[in-house]
């Protein structure tokens, strides 16, 4: 099996953008190709993560359009859809293509243009990932599902509103240092706690915004990486796992076995433990998810995340910085782009190129992209060093 390197990354600014979906995807993809000095190379495949262009933008077959716009014809091109983890799944598909030896170079892009549709339409669109006869028929929304879980966590473990919203304060502080983030301003805990209730106990600042944006990554067989970049970052592990679709059918709605399974697979493949990780990007579509993912990925025991947050350990200068990009809360969450953007951030961090939000000397990064409502999750482990087999070989 081949080793897989990331040789180029690119990302648009997230937020309310004038450009249409295809223009955003082209901007990010071209930036990734230029980053690798690879605008003239032949691409073995293009994988595009996108959740809802058919519903929001009346545009389908976005991968076919992108490969044409980039001048990459006749490269095979596929759209990959896994709800809010479409980007992570696109990266996993690209990774498998290179890892298997079927392709030497693959472009992975992810994008979404959400501001074309009014807020309630976006809310209804994302709710289409729920079960039509057991969840959606009662009008459940994703924030309401997150609120059910948040209340359950508060009942069992005593998590307060102040503790939970500290996650939003941290991520806004990080987003203020990220020139590509949707929100580039800090917030106070008082502002977060007094923000309007969305679905109690969740408040506005518990929830990520709807954003436009795109991100892209160029993957290459590691043997060719040095011809594209002086700073390759290696994909050491790619894990994915699923769970029951309906939240209330799961044995423990706080357990997130798909998160645990995806993370365990990624770490096993990487031959690394969570303790080896220096920087983390998690899928904080709602504040409670950052906490649950961190604990279920193995970074903290149950109840350990809130304590670590209060002690500043998760800040950019802490011992395990989480969401230095600002996370979904501040960087933004264009569904199809998020999983790719998380990995772009890790690459900048591992290259030492993250500017004001740079974590000190990271070697290993981890990303978790949360699809469905936790029922199809994709995790990746990245490193500045190649896998052990390769180095010894």
């Amino acid at each position: 099996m081949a080793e897989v390197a990331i040789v180029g990354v690119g990302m648009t600014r997230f937020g309310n953008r004038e450009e249409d979906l295809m223009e955003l995807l082209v901007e990010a993809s071209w930036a990734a190709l230029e980053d690798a000095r690879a605008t003239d190379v032949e691409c073995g495949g293009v994988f595009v993560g996108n959740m809802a262009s058919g519903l929001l933008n009346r545009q389908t077959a976005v991968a076919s359009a992108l490969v044409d716009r980039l001048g990459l014809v006749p490269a095979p091109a596929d759209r990959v859809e896994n709800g809010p983890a479409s980007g992570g799944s696109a990266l996993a598909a690209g990774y498998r293509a290179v890892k298997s030896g079927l392709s030497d170079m693959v472009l992975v892009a992810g994008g979404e243009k959400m501001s074309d549709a009014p807020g309630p339409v976006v809310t209804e669109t994302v709710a289409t990932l729920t079960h039509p006869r057991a969840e959606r028929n009662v009008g459940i929304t994703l924030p309401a599902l997150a609120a059910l879980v948040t209340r359950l966590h508060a009942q069992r473990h005593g998590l307060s509103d102040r503790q939970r919203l500290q996650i939003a304060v941290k991520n806004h502080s990080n987003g203020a240092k990220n020139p590509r983030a949707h929100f580039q301003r800090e917030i106070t805990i008082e502002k977060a706690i007094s923000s309007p209730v969305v679905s109690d106990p969740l408040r506005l600042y518990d929830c990520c915004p709807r954003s436009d944006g795109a991100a892209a990554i160029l993957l290459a067989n590691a043997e060719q990486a040095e011809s594209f970049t002086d700073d390759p970052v290696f994909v050491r592990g790619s894990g994915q796992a699923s769970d029951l679709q309906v939240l209330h059918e799961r044995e423990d709605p706080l357990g997130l076995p798909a998160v645990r399974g995806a993370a365990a697979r990624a770490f096993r493949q990487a031959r690394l433990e969570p303790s080896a990780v220096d920087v983390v990007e998690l899928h904080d579509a709602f504040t409670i998810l950052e906490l649950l993912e961190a604990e279920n990925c193995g970074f903290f025991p149950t109840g350990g995340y809130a304590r670590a947050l209060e002690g500043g350990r998760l800040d950019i200068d802490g011992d395990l910085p989480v969401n230095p990009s600002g996370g979904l809360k501040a960087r933004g969450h264009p569904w199809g782009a998020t999983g790719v953007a998380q990995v772009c951030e890790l690459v900048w961090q591992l290259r030492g190129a993250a500017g004001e939000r740079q974590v000190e000397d990271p070697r290993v990064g981890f990303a978790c992209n949360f699809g469905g409502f936790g029922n199809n999750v994709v995790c990746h482990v990245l490193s500045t060093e190649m896998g052990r087999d390769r180095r010894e070989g």
Partner: protein
Amino acid sequence: MGGKIELSKCGACGALQEPGHSKCIRCGATRFVKELVELEGTVFTYTNCRALPEGLKHFDQVTYAIVDLECGARVLGQVRPAGSVVSGMPVVGKVGVTYEHPDGRQERGLVFRAKKHKGDWA
């Protein structure tokens, strides 16, 4: 008095499940029978939702709850009147209209109310 709904019951382990599956989510068996169960139980967790989708915009808020039925199944429904329950509260339920699409189509689902509530289901 609450209403009743028909659930799938695993022919091997007896686990009740809604919605149905090809394989039992507890034991993996593939044979099911239908069982009519009472909609009585207790609130497992709940939320009062104020940011509502189009089909519920005529409400100020809607309460959603996961309910543990006495028969052992766990289900999701709305609670009426909104804001009237807390976790652990006994509830009774029925099947009713739970969502109205802008084009007039209606969705039906589970609607609960506190067991001690004596008013109507509005």
